[in-house]
């Protein structure tokens, strides 16, 4: 009896016409490069998924989209997305992206990098690009640590955490990145966690449509280094923490959104203002000062 059943079942399977299911984000990935290098439980892949959803939802022109990363775990995003993608030097994704945007203003340029890359070694470029209001979309995956190199203290590592370079506990103050970039001049600032995949995707879509310097911080788990060393459990525990301790407060003053090791995570859209971007200001200035002598950049592209 049971034998017959099994035979029928397998026959059915062979004859069954299964509609092929395509993962909607796969079109944006260099699938030939999979498997990726990220650890089990890492949140970076989740952010890429939200990013890809935003590409679909926003209907952004993919042909005019370039993605720039620095160095680190998140720096590897550039290598996995099927876009014109640049894996640059440590900390310098923003100035490279600035060059792309200045030479070809038609490009939409996304900077996709980590907290250490963008706010430590690249901190100077972060604040100056925000000050200039260069038209870039910065996605900062903040896993609170230097993960690629083995779990060293980052400018974002919360006080009292233990890292490989602060084995007795971190005693230096950490950056509150939304506060930093708002003060420097960013026109769009949001923070979500990898638990908030829909909200993150929506925020990325909004940033695409925002002229000027936008900054989205994504709090993301690093089970291998940050959580393990701090006895904070695995990736699922991180999701539970994000779920339980996140408070959505759109428009919260960024001075109040600093992170602690186990406390509340304030998420939401904090800043969404209008301010002319660098290239708009540049053109206006040249028009005013040079009049007819000003020649707008058209095709700087050498054949």
């Amino acid at each position, binding site marked *: 009896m049971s034998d017959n059943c099994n035979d029928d079942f397998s026959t059915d399977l062979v004859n069954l016409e299964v509609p092929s299911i395509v993962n909607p984000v796969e079109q944006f990935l*260099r699938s030939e*490069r999979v498997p990726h290098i990220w650890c089990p439980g890492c949140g970076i892949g989740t952010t890429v998924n939200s990013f890809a959803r935003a590409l679909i939802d926003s209907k952004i022109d993919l*042909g*005019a989209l*370039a993605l*720039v990363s620095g160095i680190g775990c998140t720096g590897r995003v*550039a*290598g996995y997305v*099927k*876009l*014109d*993608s*640049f*894996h*640059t*030097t440590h*900390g*310098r994704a923003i*100035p*490279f*992206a*600035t*060059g*792309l*945007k*200045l*030479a*070809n203003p*038609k*490009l939409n340029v996304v900077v996709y990098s980590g907290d250490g890359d963008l706010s430590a070694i690249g901190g*100077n*470029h972060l604040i*100056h690009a925000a000050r200039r209001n260069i038209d870039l979309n910065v996605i900062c995956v903040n896993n609170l640590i230097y993960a690629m190199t083995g779990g060293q203290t980052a400018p974002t590592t919360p006080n009292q955490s233990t890292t490989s370079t602060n084995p007795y506990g971190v005693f230096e103050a950490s950056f509150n990145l939304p506060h930093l970039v708002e003060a420097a001049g960013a026109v769009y600032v949001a923070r979500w966690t990898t638990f908030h995949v829909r909200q993150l995707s929506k925020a990325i879509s909004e940033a695409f449509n925002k002229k000027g310097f936008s900054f989205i911080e994504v709090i993301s788990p690093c089970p291998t280094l940050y959580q393990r060393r701090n006895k904070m459990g695995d990736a699922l525990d991180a999701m539970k923490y994000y779920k339980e301790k996140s408070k959505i407060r759109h428009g919260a003053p960024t001075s109040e959104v600093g992170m602690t090791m186990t406390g509340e995570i304030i998420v939401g859209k904090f800043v969404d203002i209008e301010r002319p971007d660098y290239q708009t200001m*540049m053109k206006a200035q*040249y028009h005013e000062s*040079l009049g007819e*002598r*000003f*020649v*707008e*950049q*058209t095709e*700087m*592209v*050498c*054949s």
Partner: protein
Amino acid sequence: MKAGHQKADPRGVLTGIHFMDGDHACCEGALAAGSRCAAGYPITPSTEVVERFASRVPTVGGVFIQMEDELAASITLQGMVWAGAKAFTVTSGPGFSLMMEHIGYAAMTETPCVFVDVQRGGPSTGLPTLPAQADMMQAKWGSHGDYEIIALCPNSPQECFDLTIKAFNLAEEYRVPVMFMMDECVGHMSEKVVIPPADEIEVVPRRHTHKSVEDYLPYGTNGDLVPEMAHAGEGYNFHVTGLTHDERGYPNMTLPIQDKLVRRLRDKIVNAVDRITMTEEENLDDADVVVVSYGITSRVAQRAIEAARAHGLKVGKLRLITAWPFPDKKINDLAAKIKAFVVPELNLGQMVREVERAAHGQAKTIAVPHAGGGVHNPEEILKAIVEAAR
């Protein structure tokens, strides 16, 4: 004109006879070469190059941005290049030190671009307003790893114009960062500069791919050693990384790929050394002694050479216009025929080591060092020539 070469865009060419300094002439050279993009950070004695560029470029359709530091400037220009522009940056010693990582990035990613270094006295802050030629080894070896660059050394404002065009052309031809090694004297001296009509200026276009998206391999070379380039926004969806990469541009950290890539980066320059090398030569045929010099020092050496010949000494002149790749064979061939090389330079001994190495012991090599801050007294060089001729 070689096949595929173009004439300069007349909009950027300030045709005429000018009295201008080397820094300004360098800027005009960049514009004539078709550069409409630059990123910079102020540093004496180089700033005049970008000051002029900032003033000129909005009238010819382009952009200059003053970045927050040299690290930024030296990578912003590479973003400009990958968006399709010809771009450069300008600096001096301390800034040049900060740019080293991005010279390596440009070499690894084969980003055609120009780094202008108006050399001043060092080390460290050194002598901001006074000349030196002490960055010559840094220009070649300053970034980590094995790689090749091209370095040119102008000795007059006229050459600051002419050779800046050449620097851009070489950058495009070989997809390599070109170091334009000026010095404070050449940068700040004013002389006659003749800028020819645009149709007399040859410009090398980008090695842009004509392949379809499907057929394009970003680092495939077909034996030519120099790959074809695509630009962001053209639909190629290509990847660029400073990691060791395969022909697709994808990271691949295996030994065979490392070996293949790093050897190609070397070979594309070293195999072309004869085509790249430019020298100025006088009286080499009957010479017992050859003075090897470059930049401002070549003009001081000229006086010493003339004085020596007036005394009946058989002295020849070899001026290195291209310092890197080093013309080993030229030095080696000369060494077989002469008694000695005399090598004056505004450092305590840099290119002289290359001369000595390439001479393979066939001729003596006499250094005439100078710590920088001024130029040699021609008598110092003359004394060395007399000693060498004995």
